[in-house]
């Protein structure tokens, strides 16, 4: 573009079709099925380690017993949420919020350092796809066999293999749905009900819904969930920068690509290290070619790294033609340690600091959490009443919520109003994990009332658990002296 500045400014650039032979294309396309080749190697082992870890956790946790009950149980009907020693009330919802904020910052932090590690290793979509792919591989065979089977006619062999695969998939899906519901209904009861098929209507719904969603997502939708539904793929670039470790193809080393005889002289053949075997494309679960550079579809599962390393080994070339590298690292030919050295940069430090601060606040607030809660509700219709000898009385209803699994006795006390007497509060017993309402009256003598003056006066109810005087909950309220 060598036009002078003045001339350029006036140029109106029309929208014109490029003179290429037009072709008919649909706005919606039939999805091409992806047949990922199975892969072995260091990263594949990591992926399977994560599959085992997350799934033992997910499937196993409901079966764990703690304090004589299910260790993790979210009881929706009684609105009590048991997590090991914790008994949470709906009022503790802030902890869930905290957990979600923590997860979000954890994701930001990890993404800034190492890209989509979550997607590649821990996301349920990846994990269940991995499991379902393994089943598919066992029953229908390797990539080539699967392609041939799908293309071939419906033989008895195909019918049996397909139905066996779907049966196993459905079984895994329904077991997943069952385990999911097991977090909300005692899993042992649910297990007993499963044999007589006597689930409740909502249990039926959720076992099947979650089960079929697993079957559909991991069996059929697979990479399309990541490509078209998951928002993370679309905003990941906000967390990436040129020093983020991503799965990269070293084009400078690999190109020009081409087939060659083993042991051929590269310089003479004018070839790079890439032998263009296409294995990295065949193993890709999202169907991209990593050699085209970073793409939003890439879930950073590193299957292509494993595949390429195995080829490099066979060719007796050094490993790492496809490897975790940063954009700067590739351009500036940085060494591994130089790239890792750049991890400590402002973006990562800020994400890390915020993450650490939130984590510390979360842990501290959980640790300093009281074993009970108090709500104070004033009588609203009559704010104050005169009783014997002109004393002023206010009425309050106190809700005492026991967040332990033992019966507790609480002592209610009063602070903030000189001369105020708590009338009918003896010590209050509350059953394990139960809430109880009590009505208490606070009385002030005529002289004290006069000294206070008409109006609302701040006061506090102090509730202590007997046997543990250190635990004290203070709830604010007001005492009203009528005019």
């Amino acid at each position: 573009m060598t036009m002078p500045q003045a001339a350029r400014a006036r140029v109106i650039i029309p929208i014109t079709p490029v003179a290429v032979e037009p072709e008919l294309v649909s706005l919606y396309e039939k999805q091409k099925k992806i047949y990922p080749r199975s892969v072995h190697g260091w990263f594949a082992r990591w992926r399977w380690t994560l599959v085992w870890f997350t799934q033992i956790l997910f499937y196993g946790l409901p079966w764990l017993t703690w304090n004589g009950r299910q260790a993790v149980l979210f009881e929706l009907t009684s609105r009590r949420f048991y997590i090991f020693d914790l008994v949470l009330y709906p009022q503790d919802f802030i902890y869930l919020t905290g957990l979600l904020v923590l997860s979000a910052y954890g994701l930001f932090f990890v993404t800034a350092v190492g890209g989509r590690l979550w997607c590649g290793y821990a996301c349920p979509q990846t994990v269940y796809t991995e499991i379902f792919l393994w089943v598919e591989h066992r029953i229908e065979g390797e990539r080539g066999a699967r392609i041939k089977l799908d293309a071939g006619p419906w033989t008895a062999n195909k019918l049996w293999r397909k139905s066996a695969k779907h049966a196993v998939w459905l079984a895994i899906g329904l077991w997943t749905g069952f385990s999911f519901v097991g977090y909300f209904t005692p899993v042992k009861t649910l297990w007993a009900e499963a044999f007589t098929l006597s689930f409740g209507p909502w249990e039926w719904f959720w076992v099947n819904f979650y089960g079929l969603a697993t079957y559909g997502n991991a069996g059929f939708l697979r990479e399309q969930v990541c490509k078209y539904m998951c928002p993370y793929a679309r905003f990941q670039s906000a967390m990436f920068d040129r020093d983020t470790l991503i799965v990269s193809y070293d084009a400078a080393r690999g190109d020009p690509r081409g087939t060659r005889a083993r042991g051929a002289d590269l310089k003479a053949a004018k070839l790079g290290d890439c032998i263009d075997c296409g294995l990295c494309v065949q193993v890709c679960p999202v169907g991209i070619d990593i050699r085209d550079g970073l793409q939003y579809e890439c879930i950073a599962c590193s299957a292509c790294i494993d595949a390429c390393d195995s080829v490099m080994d066979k060719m007796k070339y050094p490993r790492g033609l496809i490897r975790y590298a940063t954009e700067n690292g590739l351009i500036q030919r940085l060494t591994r340690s130089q790239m890792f050295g750049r991890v400590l940069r402002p973006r990562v430090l800020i994400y890390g600091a915020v993450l650490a601060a939130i984590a510390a606040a979360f842990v501290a607030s959980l640790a300093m959490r009281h074993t009970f809660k108090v709500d104070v509700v004033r009588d609203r219709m009559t704010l104050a009443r005169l009783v014997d000898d002109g004393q002023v009385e206010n009425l309050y209803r106190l809700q005492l919520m026991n967040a332990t699994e033992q019966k507790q006795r609480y002592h209610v006390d009063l602070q903030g109003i000189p001369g105020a007497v708590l009338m009918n509060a003896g010590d209050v017993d509350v059953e394990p994990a139960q809430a109880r309402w009590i009505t208490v009256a606070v009385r002030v003598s005529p002289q004290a009332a006069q000294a206070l003056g008409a109006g609302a006066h701040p006061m506090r109810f102090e509730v202590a658990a007997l046997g543990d005087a250190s635990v004290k909950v203070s709830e604010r309220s007001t005492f009203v002296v009528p005019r």
Partner: protein
Amino acid sequence: MSDFFSSGWSIYIAVVTVVGLIACLALLIIAARRRVMAGDNTTGHVWDEDLRELNNPLPRWWMWLFVLTIVFAGAYLALYPGLGSAAGSLKWSSAGQHQDEQAKARALTAPLFARLAATPVPELARNPQAMAVGERLFANNCAACHGADAKGSKGFPNLTDADWLWGGSPERIKETITQGRQGMMPPIAAAVGSPEDVRNVAQYVLSLSGSAHNSIAAEFGHPKFAVCAACHGANGKGNPAMGAPNLTDKIWLHGWGEDAIVAMVTKGKTNVMPAHGDRLTPEQIHVLTAYVWGLSNSAAANAP
């Protein structure tokens, strides 16, 4: 649909809804039809010399989701209200759903209430389960006026003492809750006599309960009390049949002292306990009666 003053609006809304749905479908079909594209997977459009728009097609199943939403909308409009004022074939309404849920809740608690309703009040007052139910009923229906502890306040009777305006037997309490009460003190200062006479009567009334009073004025007031005796009785002990309070105890529902009594005699007072017969079921009222009765009969209620 009372918001619509003529059925024209309903038709208008229905037409807009249906045309909108059809337009969505038409747009989808038109947009999904094959378009002329360039051969290099771009839409063939170029901006600013070299910016090209890549053709990035959605998966086709995604399009079927769009179609599904339109099918869903059609089914929804057939079943539920939405097409103008048409009620839909399920005849669903939020009020109806609320009533269904209430009926379901009633059916769920019916066996419990049937059992409780068959138990006599004094026995029921000893039943912790019944009292827990009663406490909740009281908190929801009675506590607003009588206080969370049922001790009332000025103008709202204390239900925990033995003093009853309309009688404290279970039958009378049940009647009070079901039908409500209207207590009426007429302004009868004129019948009593001069303002002086009214003050003397007030002093006499104070003397009945042994409160501090002027005994000479009370002596003068004694004969004038005959007017009051028609309802409150010659001895001032009141009459629960008509809600006339007992004047010989130290319970002063509407205020203590000569001024308060003079005001009452001069101006009169109408105090209302609203009827709850159509708000609560007879079974609920039975349990509530036992709860209220138990408040002032705790000794009897707690006896084995």
